[in-house]
């Protein structure tokens, strides 16, 4: 009897967690970033080497390269060489033909080599990303999202608080009850990092690679230390976004994927009941 009552009685509390602009921006971004990543890998395939400084071509020292030998594929970072046959540098395409482009066809737009098409997708969706991010930043700033949800409060800056949140994440102890309605400190760090650091960095380093925009804003070349440095930072920041995406997905899966995804569609989030409420 008690068990049935316990199951039936505590009504799960629903909170309006994500406002409309956040939800729209989130899904536009999800699609846009995927297209930008895959078309970006196609563009990278045209010259799979990264340099620091103002110039860099085949004869110059590349700090990062994806390449192939007659039998293997490899990734080289500095002096370290990692064999990646089958995935990077040398792989088999969908028709069973061996290819030596850096990134395999399943990871690029389009699936077979076309720099022109990769650029077309990339440079169109760069506009989508930039316009959407600008609008979202303005809304976050003036619509209260930044102050209400992302602002890191004084108490949260303490190392003890941050360390406790790291431990909670590591033990997969996620906040329940009212605490689940708010972002925790690691969430705030990562969302602020993505919105205000990584995405703007992608746009600025992208613009730095444009010879036309260099004439408009030569200070970008100085800011990033040259076009090839900007290209390297573009690649590193993209890798950081991929890492964010992977952690983000794992967290959604662990925190209850149906509730999390639903809240990002409808806005409404069901608060997980407090632990001490359970028997």
């Amino acid at each position, binding site marked *: 009897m008690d068990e049935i009552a316990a199951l039936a009685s505590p009504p799960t509390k629903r909170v309006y967690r994500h406002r409309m602009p956040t939800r729209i921006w989130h899904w536009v971004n999800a699609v846009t970033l995927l297209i930008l990543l895959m078309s970006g890998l196609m563009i990278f395939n045209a010259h799979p080497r990264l340099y620091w400084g103002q110039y860099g071509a085949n004869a110059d020292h590349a700090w990062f390269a994806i390449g192939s030998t007659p039998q293997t594929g490899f990734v080289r970072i500095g002096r370290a060489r990692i064999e990646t046959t089958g995935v990077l540098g040398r792989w*088999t395409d969908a028709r069973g033909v061996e290819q030596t482009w850096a990134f395999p066809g399943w990871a690029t737009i389009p699936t077979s080599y076309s720099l022109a098409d990769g650029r077309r997708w990339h440079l169109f969706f760069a506009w989508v990303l930039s316009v959407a991010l600008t609008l979202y930043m303005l809304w976050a700033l003036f619509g209260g999202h930044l102050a209400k949800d992302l602002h890191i409060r004084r108490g949260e800056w303490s190392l003890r608080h941050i360390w406790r949140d790291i431990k909670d994440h590591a033990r997969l102890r996620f906040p329940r009850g009212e605490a689940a309605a708010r972002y925790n400190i690691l969430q705030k760090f990562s969302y602020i990092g993505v919105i205000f650091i990584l995405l703007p960095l992608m746009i600025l380093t992208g613009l730095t690679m444009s010879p036309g925009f260099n004439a408009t804003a030569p200070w970008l070349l100085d800011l990033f230390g040259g076009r090839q440095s900007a290209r390297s930072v573009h690649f590193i920041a993209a890798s950081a976004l991929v890492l964010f995406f992977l952690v983000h997905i794992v967290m959604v899966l662990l925190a209850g994927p149906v509730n999390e995804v639903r809240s990002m569609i409808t806005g409404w989030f069901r608060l997980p009941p407090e632990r001490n409420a359970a028997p």
Partner: protein
Amino acid sequence: MSGLILPRRRLIARAGGLVAAAGALPLLSGCDAINEAPAVRKILSMGEVMHQHSQRALTDRDALAREFTRADLSPVFRSNGTKLPSGGDYAAHAATGFADWRIQVTGLVAHPLSLSMAEIRAMPQRTQITRQDCVEGWSAIGQWTGPQLSRILAAAGLRDNARYIVFRCADRIGDALYYESCDLVDALHPQTIMAWALNDAVLPIANGAPLRLRIERQLGYKHAKYVNAIEAVASLDAIGAGKGGYWEDRIDYEWYAGI
């Protein structure tokens, strides 16, 4: 050692193959079908128009590409595309050091010109150390010398209805001669020069001897090499496939290559 590596390599290859085979295959071909759809291509090409107009709006007509110092020169200036034009004509010119090479300036001009390399070198010259950005991603810095294109066009006298400048080249790729084009904003830009020298030496054949275009605010494929004719036109429609350049016609590279 190899005993350890080989099975793992096979394992990774097999895993990669499985990913490609299971489920991903129809999805990927679906993606490629979207990529080929004319309506999608039309929408995506709006990006180029937006880039061109926003850069034109933000950038002064004469805003300069960054110029560097001799300390910044690439140790090796990479060459790309055609490294030696085929055919006996070009070989004969190369054998005589391009002594008889002439550049025709035609089209919508008041006085069509036929310039020898000696005449090109006798004009007032501009020397600039600039960065070339290949569409593929690499960059090289070199020092270029030659007359400004604006001077050549002024000598020929551009007519009022001239809108674009077409550059015709001596190198044939496959079935057609290479060509490029630009609008008057870039043609009359102070850094747009017809270069005959690279790094204080006569332009090497691999880099476009005897004369090439430098159009510093655009990507490398716009910098036509082996130029033998400069033509002022009102429209690009009747030239090549009408998209304004060799690669633009063939594989849809952007005509506006400032990004």
